[in-house]
């Protein structure tokens, strides 16, 4: 990495990106190099196929959903700012940030709530703001091995939704989702250390 001499100036809109995402210069540099590496044909943007060619994602149960989360609203292209915006969710939470954050400013992308939102939208495929029982079942199907039968999966899905559902509408809203995970150390679980 060090022997690559490239200027930060080559990253488009680097300052606004830094502002928006909170990444350091070095991290943005690293991500930019990675973006270019993934973009094998030098198109300047990434398509789904580029991400699909990451071999390790093919053996990850949620691999395809994660790829989809990089392409919001059904777009087919992923440019660098979009790439960075999604990854900003995984920046480790700075301790100092919370204290003197201006409450009027929008929440930083890597806040706990935003991390949870990222996970939520992986479940909530139809973007209606709720995880229905059906969506839960689909997610379970992805994540559970084939030795668990369909009935068992359905009952697990039922129970899972029931546990989290407080207002009895048969679906898990974002707030209910966040509440069910209040004891989990999201900040640590959804952070990649190198993305400082």
């Amino acid at each position: 990495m060090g022997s690559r001499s490239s200027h930060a100036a080559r990253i488009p809109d680097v300052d606004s990106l830094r502002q928006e995402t909170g990444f350091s210069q070095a991290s943005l540099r690293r991500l930019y190099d990675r973006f270019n590496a993934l973009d094998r044909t030098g198109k300047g943007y990434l398509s789904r196929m580029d991400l699909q060619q990451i071999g390790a994602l093919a053996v990850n149960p949620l691999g395809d959903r994660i790829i989809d989360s990089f392409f919001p609203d059904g777009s087919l292209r992923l440019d660098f700012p979009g790439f960075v915006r999604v990854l900003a969710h995984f920046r480790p939470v700075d301790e100092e940030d919370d204290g003197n954050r201006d409450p009027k400013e929008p929440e930083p992308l890597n806040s706990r709530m935003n991390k949870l939102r990222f996970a939520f939208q992986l479940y909530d495929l139809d973007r209606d703001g709720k995880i229905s029982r059906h969506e839960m079942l689909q997610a379970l199907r992805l994540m559970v091995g084939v030795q668990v039968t369909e009935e068992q999966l359905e009952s697990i899905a039922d129970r899972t939704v029931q546990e989290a559902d407080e207002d009895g509408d048969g679906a898990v809203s974002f707030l209910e989702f966040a509440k069910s995970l209040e004891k989990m150390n999201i900040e640590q679980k959804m952070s990649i250390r190198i993305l400082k």
Partner: protein
Amino acid sequence: MLRAALPLLGLPLAGAGATEEPTQEPGSPGEPPPGLALFRWQWHEVEAPYLVALWILVASLAKIVFHLSRKVTSLVPESCLLILLGLALGGIVLAVAKKAEYQLEPGTFFLFLLPPIVLDSGYFMPSRLFFDNLGAILTYAVVGTLWNAFTTGAALWGLQQAGLVAPRVQAGLLDFLLFGSLISAVDPVAVLAVFEEVHVNETLFIIVFGESLLNDAVTVVLYKVCNSFVEMGSANVRATDYLKGVASLFVVSLGGAAVGLVFAFLLALTTRFTKRVRIIEPLLVFLLAYAAYLTAEMASLSAILAVTMCGLGCKKYVEANISHKSRTAVKYTMKTLASCAETVIFMLLGISAVDSSKWAWDSGLVLGTLFFILFFRALGVVLQTWVLNQFRLVPLDKIDQVVMSYGGLRGAVAFALVILLDRTKVPAKDYFVATTIVVVFFTVIVQGLTIKPLVKWLKVKRSEHHKPTLNQELHEHTFDHILAAVEDVVGHHGYHYWRDRWEQFDKKYLSQLLMRRSAYRIRDQIWDVYYRLNIRDAISFVDQGGHVLSSTGLTLPSMPSRNSVAETSVTNLLRESGSGACLDLQVIDTVRSGRDREDAVMHHLLCGGLYKPRRRYKASCSRHFISEDAQERQDKEVFQQNMKRRLESFKSTKHNICFTKSKPRPRKASRKKKDGVANTEATNGKPPRDLGFHDTAAVILTVESEEEEDSDSSETEKEDDEGIIFVARATSEVLQEGKVSVGCSNKNPDKDPHMKFGGEP
């Protein structure tokens, strides 16, 4: 004791004996010759090999007996049981024969018992993990061992000065340093034996294990240097000798590694040409690796490093070149040999301890050594980890440090080295021997026994106190998967610049030289499986018009499907089309009573069923089990499901977009190594990059000719004349274990946006 068993086998011996020349006939002329002997006792001719075979047999029988009791083996690691067995056997031999036979001879140990174990470790070492953590491994191996050696030696000397060690132990500072150097090395045999039972995460395992392998160079150098200093006498040591000592560290380690790599190269090269003589392939592997060991041993270089490097270096090419059966043969034989050697080592350790003529007891020395090795190891680990965490991407946390310091076991290598000491030069040898025996026993038995409960206790302590709800279970796994996926997207693993460079070099020169031509193409059987998987799936899917048809349900041919007792078409509809519509299924009414039991059942189901995210895999270096482990099975399942889904979405999108008819260029295997889809389109100036960070070789094959044959039946295939390019990546593990990442990609990805968005540079 042994003779008692022999009459049972007297018959074969008699057969052998009767054909011998009657050499033992008493030749005195006065007596009449006794006549043709029907039965003769030829013990001496067969003694040596017979004893060897018998010991190995006893060890194996002991293993069988141990494993009869599940409970015992879950509590006590095998190495402990073997040592205790050795003690018992040694006691018996001592009582019967009144003298101790069957020691652990250093010669036998270094030449015959140690190489199989090291070869097995080196060959099956996960190379990517190893090189990712190489910095940490080297630090612990070199700096850690040096630290341990010097501090232990100095502390013991201090102990002696303070009078806690009896004066009959005549040892000066150099002697203590020598002792420190041989007692401080973490032993690969012991570490492997114990860590197999304790399931730690793979990073930790590779660090401890790598350290135990790489510190051999340091130990060898320190031992030799201190030995020579002791022989020269401390007064004669000059400054240049110290410098030479430091230089020899580099010579020994780098030289050993170089020897290993040379032999790896030779091995890879020879296996390239063994196509007609498949039967000798396993033999070649073993012979050349053993030759590497012996050559390094001969040149006084680090033999363990040589074998490790040989195994690491040759694996990728050898696996690609040799036949499937040979691969299995190599794997199995290596494991068998290593397991057998390990068993014999531990048993002999136990036996050797019994011979009290070889050792002399001094409490101060023994207790002091025990305390110091534990203390200084812990201290060293903490300090080094603190430094390393500044540089590492994934820090090593407290549990890891505890396991690392506690898991620094000493074993047979220390014992063999101490036996090698020259008593005339080192008068305190007997005391050292006793201390080494106690240390080895203590670490293997006590630490081996307690490390598992310790880890469990620590982990349980760290986790939440209340029982996690189903939600938390599920979501925790989700988060882990997400994190693993994003890490892969980001290219989380460090050093990838150098890895890329290495892989380019490898692709261009090495692989062409060392790998068989046909290995470039994806192995036929693997290719066939996945080809058939995708095309068959595609055909079936499309045949059914992309909808779910019959009530018998759609099951794609090779897909592992959930067995459902009442398989309704509604279920299938959901499964296959994955529609976003929220269908109100008839909830299968589970009995609501006994909620807690239900809870427990569900938890159990969920926990057992959830796919494990990457971090939780245990290391797959197991001496005792070769079965396809859960990770592979899981990967296969997930992979198949993912590919199926991608294929489906690919099919569904293609109906929306109309492609230009472009003749895909036939590109089968005439090109050797190409990367990615890039080469089918406009050339890119960028160096080809490997994203999977495995040792990969990317091959493009266009399947259009076969595909057109098969797709004659389905119309939708024909109308869009596109070639499905399977970009197949073969990793070294992949070829070995038969999984391939196959990505279906559209041939002309640029053209879609051009079609849709009206052109764009």
